[in-house]
């Protein structure tokens, strides 16, 4: 019951906090849209090669591109309220539909990469802290620092050379075998195999971030009085680290994980493009190449919203980890 109340309090606080941010993002988005060079009509005209001034005006009118800025903002907000992000003349579909078709793939990739990064980061960081200053710590510190310094997409490319080109173990293109008609476990295995390399590439940097953080955080916790209390109970050191230290050490880690979600999604642009992963990130780049800016800004808007939603999840996790949160 108390837990329920704390969760409600956390949700309420987050909602109050997120509202203005969402509005700010929308306005920022609209401003960017105004600053974009030319408009979709220009692009199509250039591509068609033979557009007259009249057909241009007609297209602008059809897409509402001829209105003054403020009324465009008003209609932009009005459309957003109805979940209408506009129509992409280039893809010939509604922007929301285009993005929604890609969203699940990005969420899958992001969650896989994040779980992988957290899991490996926590394990590496804990091992480094447990052997602090001795050789396992020194060796892992070097490995982690290297991971921290390598571009994720390059790690992905090198993994492709090793696992796809040389060993032939894993596929490196798209999110499934094209033209396959797998069902059941074979389908899941096929999807999972396609997920490994992109998730690895996306996670590599964050593995290093979390490992460094967990190490510092675990070392800090060891100095606390309650750790001596736990030892004085005769508990096994492993249990003490797991139950008493890790939970405390994870509190700052979840905070930082929340701050990194935006960067994780940003990284997805490169990784998705590299692996032909049909997600929002690759869509963003396709939109840039097609000069279809309503789609690009739709991606920006929706990924920001995704970050906010993910942050709510992180806040809840935080409240679960730390009983002091959510009680006034």
């Amino acid at each position, binding site marked *: 019951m108390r837990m329920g109340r704390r969760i409600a309090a956390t949700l309420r606080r987050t909602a109050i906090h997120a509202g203005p941010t969402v509005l700010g993002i929308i306005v920022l988005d609209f401003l960017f849209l105004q600053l974009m060079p030319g408009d979709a009509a220009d692009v199509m005209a250039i591509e068609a090669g033979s557009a007259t001034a009249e057909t241009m005006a007609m297209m602008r009118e059809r897409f509402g591109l001829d209105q003054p800025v403020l009324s465009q903002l008003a209609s932009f907000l009005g459309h957003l309220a109805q979940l209408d992000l506009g129509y992409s003349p280039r893809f010939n579909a509604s922007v929301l539909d285009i993005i929604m078709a890609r969203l699940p793939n990005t969420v899958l990739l992001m969650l896989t990469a994040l779980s992988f990064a957290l899991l490996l980061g926590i394990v590496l960081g804990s091992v480094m802290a447990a052997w*602090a200053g001795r050789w396992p710590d020194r060796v892992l510190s070097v490995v982690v620092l290297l991971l921290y*310094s*390598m571009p994720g997409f390059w790690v992905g490319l090198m993994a*492709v050379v090793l696992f796809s080109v040389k060993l032939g173990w894993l596929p490196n293109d798209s999110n499934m075998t094209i033209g396959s008609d797998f069902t059941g476990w074979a389908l899941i295995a096929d999807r999972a195999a396609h997920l490994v390399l992109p998730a690895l590439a996306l996670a590599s940097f964050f593995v290093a971030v979390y490992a460094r953080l967990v190490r510092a955080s675990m070392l800090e916790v*060891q100095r606390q009085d309650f750790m001596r209390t736990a030892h004085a109970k005769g508990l096994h050191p492993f249990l003490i680290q797991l139950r008493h230290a890790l939970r405390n050490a994870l509190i700052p880690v979840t905070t930082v994980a929340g701050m990194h979600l*935006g960067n994780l999604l940003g*990284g997805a*642009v490169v990784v998705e493009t590299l692996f032909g992963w049909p997600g929002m990130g690759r869509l963003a780049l396709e939109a840039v190449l097609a000069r279809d800016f309503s789609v690009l800004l739709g991606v920006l808007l929706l990924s920001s919203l995704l*970050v906010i939603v993910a942050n709510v999840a992180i806040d809840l996790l935080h409240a679960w980890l730390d009983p002091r949160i959510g009680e006034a």
Partner: protein
Amino acid sequence: MTVDAELTPKVADVGSRAAPRKGRRLRAFLRNPTFIAGVAILGFFVLLALFADMLFPGDPMDMVAQPLLWPGDDAQYPLGTDSLGRDVLAQLVHGTRASLLVGFFAAAIGLAIGMAVGAAAGFFGGWTDTLLMRLVELFQTTPTFLLVIVILVIVDPSLPTIAMAIGVSSWPTVARLVRAQFRSLREADFVMAARSLGYSRLRIIVQEILPNALPPVIVAASVMIANAILTEAGLSFLNMRDPNVLSWGGMIGDGRDQLRNAWFLTALPGAAIAMAVLSLNLVGDGLNEILNPRSDQS
């Protein structure tokens, strides 16, 4: 893939401290192997960038030999040639410039904006603070890399605009850091003294508080340069680059088509990026140890 948020936990403890005597601090710098190693590697890259034209005169984009020579095939081209017969080593050396320039200028822009916003928010508090922190939150919620791409669609990519775009998207972390410093220093004795002497706000901010707020910002700066270099690499890999300038990320993008038969074309520029970023991270870690002696070392 820029990750600027990472600096927060790393430097959060640095705190403000009366600067110890100069000599002692200098010795602390010289005694710190992490810092020295970082400076040495970074210095090497800076020298390469400065003397690229003397080391490899002529246009590195010119075809000089038969294409796709592997490293070691021809002593004249120790790191081989790419699919257009261009000297990989010469390209790598010239590519140092783009990475370092973008890295330093992007960090400078990000630091300038972040320090201004953070100082104002932390010093004035109240509504200014609330409003500015909202802005910070807004920018932190937006995926940095996407933001950079959007900006580069509005202004075409060239070295200055790339640096500007990265700088404009990477300031929030510094802003938070500086704000926290200002909030704790705002009530410090020496600031109170300056206030009672009737110094102007600007003078108090710039001359009294800022120098004491600097140590964590210095650590943050090196990590910012590192992240800017990583972002620039990702951008040029996606072909969002200055078409007239050689860059490591661009080399990776070009080499990607030969991944099956000549993977060294991808591996080498990536290794160069990793080394440059590593040097900056070493400098950052070293600075953190020196400026924040309490931090782990158990």
